[in-house]
Structures are given as structure tokens and as C-alpha cells.
């Protein structure tokens, strides 16, 4: 995989004319997300779009740190989501009086430990071979969660139900509550991820990705940097798994965290753009909204012929085509596309 992954987050945005500071956009997005969305959105919007969007965006941010920034390809994302989800479930179940935030952080740490272990091959393997070795995480975790019923408190086929959510006595079980909970977790972790990628450590990630030998020679601790990327990435993806299980679906089984899910997260990162934090949100939006649009559109055009089987197949075909299109035409993803449009827009408009 030789894609040009540019750390567009590190480049001071050459936004023309408007002298807006860098935090203006994220802050206004957050303002809308916290104030306007809860008032305007319907239950359907929360349950079918916003909650999966938030969880998948966060998983995308996590994978982007590993793959986009540190250049280590992984196909084990869903496994780390599963570790997060099942760890949070068990912590909540078995540790008396542990607050939700506590189980959230500990679940992230559990995923980080597992991620670290499955990141060890990265010290020897690169690219395709590493990707294949991360499949081990995918299959091992899914197997372990199905095999040992302890993880699911002896429920049939490993299904778990999310506990009631509350923070400081405030119940968050309605769609709005779960949305605000997920939004806050995503906002905090995204902010920290941004801080990370512009730090010395983030530069080390990119150095290792772009030229491992040169990185080693200038004194970047290459092995430590790779393992740290695995740990941090898995931490974030693990917490995304908690959001997926607790805030979005409420009932999950190990099969929900299969290889398809891992690929879905990889596609989010590729479509959104490698090595951009905001790209993960664009990619996740597309992945979540696209099937819904497709099914409405298909039903409208083809009527009854467009059943769930056809939907599923056409979804895969169109998505596959889209990914190839992106790899060929816009390898830097939606984030770069957006960046370009923003830069050209004023020129286009001023010509009028």
C-alpha cells in the first residue's frame, strides 16, 4: 500500500481571505451538535444515523492514528471495538460501584493492551504482511468471546445487553441522552487525538511511516513509536466499541464485530483521507448515510424488486466502486477534496 498520506492537519490551513482561527470551525460544529441537534432531530435520526455515525467516526479516528499517521495497516479494528465493548460490559457487571466513565476508560485500556500485543508483529512485519497478521486479532477475539461464555455472563451465543447509562445520577437512556453522551466522548477523544498528532509523538508517527530508516537515524525510538501507535489507536477504537454497544445498539454479539466491520472502518479512513482527523468524520458520514440513501433510492426506482438481498449486494458494489474511485482519483480522501473545494470556491465565485 503506497499511498501518499499527507498530514493535512499539520499544515496551517491556507484558507483564503476569511481570517478565522483554527478552532472556529470545530467550535461551531460542536455548538450546533450540542444545542441545535437535540432540539431538531427525530428519534430516527438519532438511532439510525447520529449514534452509529459518532461511534464509527471515533473508530475511524483511532484507526487513522495507526494507519494514516503511523503507517501501520490494520484489519483488526472490529476486534478492538469488541474488546472495548465486552470489557466495559464486564467491568460494569462485576466491579461494584464503578462509574460509567471509569469502565469506559478501563475498557479503552483493555483494548490498548490487546492492541499492543497484536501490534508486536509490526516490529518485524510491514504492509500487506502486517495487515494479514492483524487478522489474527480479528479471529482470536471473536473466537474467545464466543468460546468463553464468562465474557457474556453466560448468555446464549455471547450476546450482551448494555446496562442502563447514567453519569452522576443523570440517566442517559433516551436517544438524546445517549447521543449527548456519545458526542461528549467523541469530542474529548477527538480533541486529544488532534493534540497528539501535532505533538512530537505525532511527528514521530509520521516519520516512522514516511521513512523508517531516516526516523531511526534522527533518534526516533521506532519500536516504541509503533507500539504506542497500536496502543493509542486501540484505546480509541475500544472506546468506540463501547459507544457502539452501549449508546447505539444496546444489544450486541461477537459476530457484530466481524471482519466486515474492520473493513468498514478501514474504508472510512480511506474515503475520509489518511492522516486527517476530520476525514474520519466525512468517511463515517458517507458510510452511514449512503446505505440509507441507496435503499430509499432503490425502492423508489425499482419498487418491490429492490429487496434486502438486492440492497445488500448493490451496496457492496457501489461502495467497492466508490473506494476504487477514491484510491485512483483522490487518494487523500474527502478531507483533501473538501480542502480543495474550499480553496477554489472563492476564485470561482470572484470570477462571477
Amino acid at each position, binding site marked *: 500500500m503506497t499511498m501518499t498520506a499527507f498530514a493535512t492537519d499539520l499544515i496551517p490551513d491556507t484558507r483564503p481571505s476569511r481570517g478565522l482561527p483554527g478552532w472556529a470551525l470545530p467550535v461551531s460544529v460542536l455548538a450546533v451538535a450540542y444545542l441545535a441537534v437535540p432540539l431538531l432531530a427525530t428519534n430516527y435520526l438519532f438511532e439510525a444515523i447520529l449514534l452509529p455515525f459518532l461511534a464509527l467516526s471515533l473508530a475511524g479516528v483511532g484507526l487513522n492514528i495507526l494507519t494514516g499517521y503511523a503507517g501501520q495497516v490494520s484489519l483488526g479494528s472490529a476486534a478492538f471495538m469488541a474488546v472495548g465493548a465486552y470489557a466495559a460490559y464486564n467491568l460494569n457487571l462485576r466491579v461494584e460501584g464503578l462509574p460509567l466513565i471509569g469502565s469506559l476508560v478501563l475498557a479503552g485500556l483493555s483494548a490498548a493492551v490487546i492492541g499492543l500485543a497484536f501490534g508486536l508483529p509490526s516490529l518485524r512485519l510491514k504492509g500487506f504482511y502486517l495487515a494479514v497478521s492483524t487478522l489474527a486479532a480479528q479471529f482470536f477475539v471473536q473466537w474467545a468471546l464466543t468460546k468463553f461464555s464468562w465474557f457474556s455472563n453466560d448468555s446464549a451465543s455471547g450476546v450482551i445487553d448494555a446496562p442502563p447509562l447514567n453519569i452522576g445520577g443523570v440517566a442517559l437512556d433516551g436517544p438524546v441522552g445517549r447521543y449527548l453522551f456519545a458526542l461528549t466522548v467523541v469530542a474529548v477523544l477527538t480533541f486529544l487525538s488532534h493534540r497528539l498528532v501535532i505533538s*512530537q509523538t505525532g511527528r514521530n508517527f509520521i516519520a516512522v511511516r514516511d521513512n523508517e*530508516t*531516516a526516523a531511526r*537515524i534522527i*533518534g526516533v525510538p521506532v519500536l516504541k513509536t509503533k507500539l504506542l501507535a497500536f496502543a493509542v489507536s486501540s484505546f480509541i477504537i475500544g472506546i468506540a466499541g463501547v459507544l457502539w454497544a452501549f449508546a447505539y445498539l444496546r444489544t450486541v454479539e461477537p459476530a457484530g464485530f466481524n471482519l466486515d466491520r474492520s473493513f468498514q472502518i478501514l474504508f472510512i479512513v480511506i474515503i475520509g483521507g489518511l492522516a486527517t482527523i476530520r476525514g474520519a468524520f466525512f468517511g463515517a458520514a458517507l458510510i452511514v448515510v449512503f446505505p440509507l440513501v441507496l435503499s430509499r433510492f432503490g425502492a423508489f426506482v425499482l419498487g418491490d424488486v429492490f429487496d434486502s438481498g438486492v440492497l445488500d449486494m448493490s451496496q457492496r458494489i457501489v461502495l467497492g466502486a466508490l473506494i476504487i474511485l477514491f484510491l485512483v482519483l483522490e487518494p487523500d480522501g474527502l478531507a483533501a477534496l473538501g480542502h480543495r473545494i474550499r480553496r477554489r470556491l472563492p476564485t470561482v465565485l470572484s470570477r462571477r
Partner: protein
Amino acid sequence: MTLVLTGASAGAWSAASTAAFETAPRGRPGLAPDADADAQVHPAAKRPASLYRAAEPETSEAVLELVGVSLSFGGVAALSEVDLSVRRGEILAIIGPNGAGKSSIVNVISGVYPPDRGHVRLKGQRYGQVPTQKLARLGVARTFQNLALFPGLSVLDNVVAGRAHRARSSFIEQLAGFGRAKRERLDARERAADVIDFLQLSPLSERLVGTLPYGLQKRVELARALVAEPDILLLDEPMAGMTATEKNEMAGFVTAARDRFGTTVVLIEHDIGVVMSLSDRVAVFDHGRRIALGTPAEVQRDQRVIDAYLGVAEDENAGEGEEL
């Protein structure tokens, strides 16, 4: 037979006259078999060498030494029994035809290749293989023949990355962003800005390094090496593919860096003009062997060097005392 070697215009000529010709070291274990032959070819050159030795022992100020280093790649001998010692504060040029083993020397010194035999002496320590991850902390920085920048980073961030070996703060501290992490960040940026300014790259510092023309990328790589404040700087063809103007600028930067920071420089370069004007001493390599070592003037007169550069088959010259 004479070879006309013209000097370039870079006003960098410095202590060349003080550096006397050095014949191959004697009586040292691991002595290259052809080293004595080397000495035999230049009876005239022996005199200044012995005078020099009488004044000060050759190894006293060696900051970097290769002793009996051999390296081969699947039967191809890249380096054979190479001895080389680099003196503090000098600019030592390494020249030789393609495939002579020049880059291999730099790769052995920086630990990218482990030598099959022999060792490297660095800061008084003896290394079978130089630990690459400690290289920067040992005070050695290098550039690569083929660029080894980080194309996904801006010019500034590439140069800041050159301070990686100084970072002590953990990523948690960096996330928090105060205390030690903040000091390190500000310090690295300030030093990077200085070096960028010194190399006249300031207007480009926010550009993605991959978007710069080749000559400027080479300059950024020099900046990344210099920002580490190395004692020893290894430059593998820093001027390859440059225009004459760019070469002159680069030559100026190399001498300025040496004069300003007292850096010892090992410079691999093809342009004989640049080499002659820039370096204090020149080591000539051919087929993995060091065939000459001396001041630019001495090396220019060396029959083996002339032969190697003119591509005369060595066995034809056996009558002149060369044994290979």
C-alpha cells in the same frame, strides 16, 4: 599522465594546507593488504607524511575511525579491509566511481549495514555494528544519497523532527502541553527556525517538503541533520543533481556549518571541482578499497586515482607496482 582537475569557485578553501598527506597506517592490525602498495606508489609523498607524524600522532584527534571494515552483498565486496580515520573539525571528502563503496562507508558508520569484519570507533567506543537508534545521541547526523525526508511533513516539521533525539517528555506530557513537553517543543521550533533561516529556506518553511524541487529537498535534509547539532556530519552526495549555482550554495553551507559549529564533515561528492575546493583531505575509493588519501593536491597527482578515474584496467598497470 596528468589529469586536470579544476577547483570550483566556492570560497571554502580552508585548512587544506595544514593537513598533510597521510599514507596508509603502518603496523596496525587489520592493515589493508594494498596499503603498503599504496605507499610504494608514492615515494615522494612519504616525506610530508612522516614530518606530519613527527609533529602529532595521527590518531590523537580522530573522532571517527573505520578499522579493517569489510562488507559484502551476496559475493559482491562493497568494502574490503577499509581503514579510515576522520579528524576533528576537518572536511574529509570521499570520492570514487559508482559502486566504489562510498555510500557503504556512510551506511556502516551509521549502522544501517553491519560490517562483515572490522569495527567502527566512535567517540572512543568500539562498535561491531553502530547502534543506529543511538546515532543521533552519539553526535552523528547524516543525509542520504537518495532523499530520505518525510514527505508528509512540512519543511519546518521535517527540520523539527531532527531534534527527535532530544525529546524526553512522554506522550501524555505532550498531550497536556506544559512543563518539559512545552520547553522541548518551543526549543525544537526555535532551533529549527534558526537552521531554516541559516539555509535560506524560511519562505518555504510551511510547504510540504514533497512539493519542493529536488535541490531544495536536499537542502532541507541538510537542515534536518544540522538542527541536531552533530559533532560529525555524514553527507552522501548532497549536491547530486544540482545546478552549478545550487552546488555553490550548498558548498557554502557545508563550510559555513563547519566553521560555525566546528562540525567534522565526511562528504561524498562526485564533482571533483567541489571536492577540491571544499575538502581538507580526500579519500579515494575504487572497488571497495581505499586507493588514496591525502590533500586534494596530493590526490590529484596520484597515479592510481588518475587510473581509476580514467577507467584504465588495473592489471595493465601491474608494472607500476600496483597489486590487486
